[in-house]
């Protein structure tokens, strides 16, 4: 199972390399005053990505190269991951303070806190962020559309 996963990961990197090379093909060529030009480095990196990914895939097929022990991606990790992505996506819409308070409340609840301590923690931290970053460091935190 680990070998199959490693092979899929390697294929993913090959795909990434091909897409990167395809994008790099549209870059302007070298000039007299810049012999390598903007495209050479991306081309070299794209090829390196593909070669290394093939090596990784070959090693997985051969049953080695440190591929034993891929740690499975757990459902509860994915929940946290999606929570973070939703939080970041909410910042420009709901503003930093509201989205942060909501995220902290949800995160604390998900982590095992009860409603009241989680709520107090969320509100307290949102106020602390306001005091430290907006008032002390003068960072204009996003206010959102609402």
């Amino acid at each position, binding site marked *: 199972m680990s070998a199959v996963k490693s092979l899929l990961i390697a294929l993913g990197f090959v795909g990434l390399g091909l897409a990167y090379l395809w994008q790099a093909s549209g870059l302007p060529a070298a000039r007299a005053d810049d012999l390598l030009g903007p495209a050479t480095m991306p081309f070299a990196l794209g090829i390196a990505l593909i070669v290394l990914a093939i090596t990784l895939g070959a090693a997985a097929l051969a049953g080695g190269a440190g591929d034993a022990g891929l740690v499975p991606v757990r459902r*509860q990790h994915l929940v946290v991951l999606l929570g973070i992505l939703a939080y970041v996506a909410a910042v420009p819409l709901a503003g930093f303070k509201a989205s942060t308070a909501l995220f902290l409340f949800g*995160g604390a609840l998900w982590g095992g806190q009860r409603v009241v301590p989680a709520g107090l923690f969320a509100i307290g931290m949102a106020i602390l962020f306001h005091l430290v*970053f907006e008032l002390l460091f003068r960072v204009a935190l996003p206010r959102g559309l609402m």
Partner: protein
Amino acid sequence: MGDVVQGILSALQWQTVVASALGCALGIVAGALPGITISMGLVLLLPVTFGLDPATAMSLLIGVYTGGMTGGSISAILLNIPGTPSAVMTGIDGHEMARRGQAGKAIGIAIWSSFIGGWVGWAALVLLAPLLARVALSFGAPELFALMLLGMTVICSFSEGSIVKGLLAGVVGLVIMTVGMDPVVGVERFTFGQVELQAGISFLAAMIGLFAIPQVILGLRSEGPRPPSRPPEVPFSEMLPSLGDLRRILKPSLWAGAIGTAVGIVPGTGGAIAAVLAYDQARRMSKAPQEFGKGSPEGIAAPEAANDGVTGGALIPTLTLGIPGDPPTAVLLGALVIQGLYAGPLLFERNAAVVYGILTTFAIAKFWTVILTLLGIKAFVQVLRVPASMLFPAVAALTVVGSYAIRNSVFDCFIMAGLGVLGYFLTQWRFPLMPIVLALVLGPPLEEHLRTSLVISGGDVTTFIRRPVSAALLALAVLMVAAQLPWRRWARALAPITVGSSPGGRP
């Protein structure tokens, strides 16, 4: 001489000294808390440094770096939960001693051996860094390109996991850094029409995402060991070692400090490797090797001194060559960039006062670490009781505000989150993240030096081989990779294919 005095004076200003103390305290907390690494503590503090002058900002961060190394051992000794990977070895004998009711003595040995080891690293830094910088000043573009390539290959080679994954991670980091304006002629690359991408991917946002987000995802519902409700008592008097104990730990601490310094100089290694090597060396040198693993004072002193030796060693390539020795020094490089300073030989020439200020503040931080650990141990132990359910969401919120504050850009928050997610998956797939971080730092100058070299040489690629220093550095890079490749395993895997495909072939 004027720069030296100016640097020392800037580090002795009250606000710099206070920042150093604050940094040490925060570093001890970050180091002690399982799941919060020193690098993570540093990246979370980066936004705070925007409004500070270089001396105060670097004092704060170097305090975190120095304090964090000692902080990791507090939880390792008292709770057998190493706060940092480098404290794992300390916990073996330290926790054993604490279990016997000598927690104070174990913490005391850790503090004082860290102090001794730290000074070994500091001495090496002060003596070697200016010399190395002077040598590196004579380097042209080909040598600088070769040096950066060597730095990258060393980190990819020594990173945890397979070398192929290390190299792949390095290439991914370089790919990320090609987004934005080309560093030589200013052509847009991979921006997809997005104005925000024209300036490239903010490597600070990237670093925050890579260092912090995977830890938040892994830590929020972690099933790891939890601190007990009543941590052991640590009396102040027990932390002051007797003359006999000091005599016993002095020699292994000096040795371990030297080992740590040497390991720290090699990019990509770090405290964990140094601690293992120093522990082994101390056991060999000890008159009572049978006590190791059962609460030996030397068993605590060696890894602790090595950890702190690493800090001085790792700063040598960081400051002189711009190649970070370990993950925290990669963040320190970023902090210098925020201040408009670029590490490398020119830093010693153009901003010598800043360099000597850093060296002085590094020494001050060692005193603060001892004082604060001795006086604040009870408070630090209480901090260990902060529940993960509150700690990690707060860290996630700090990553968002931190990445936003770099350029007041929500787009940077998206970049941070995206790379954080990438970092999580790569961590689960056992890819090292350090090569990506290093590529983010070294990518643009690497390409710039490569292209400048070829422009100067009129397109002659042999310029890298004809110049002895660049040739030697490139040869070393190739050797470094070749030595780490699993040749034997590949030969074994290929053997049946070769034999099967050639009729009459030898068995």
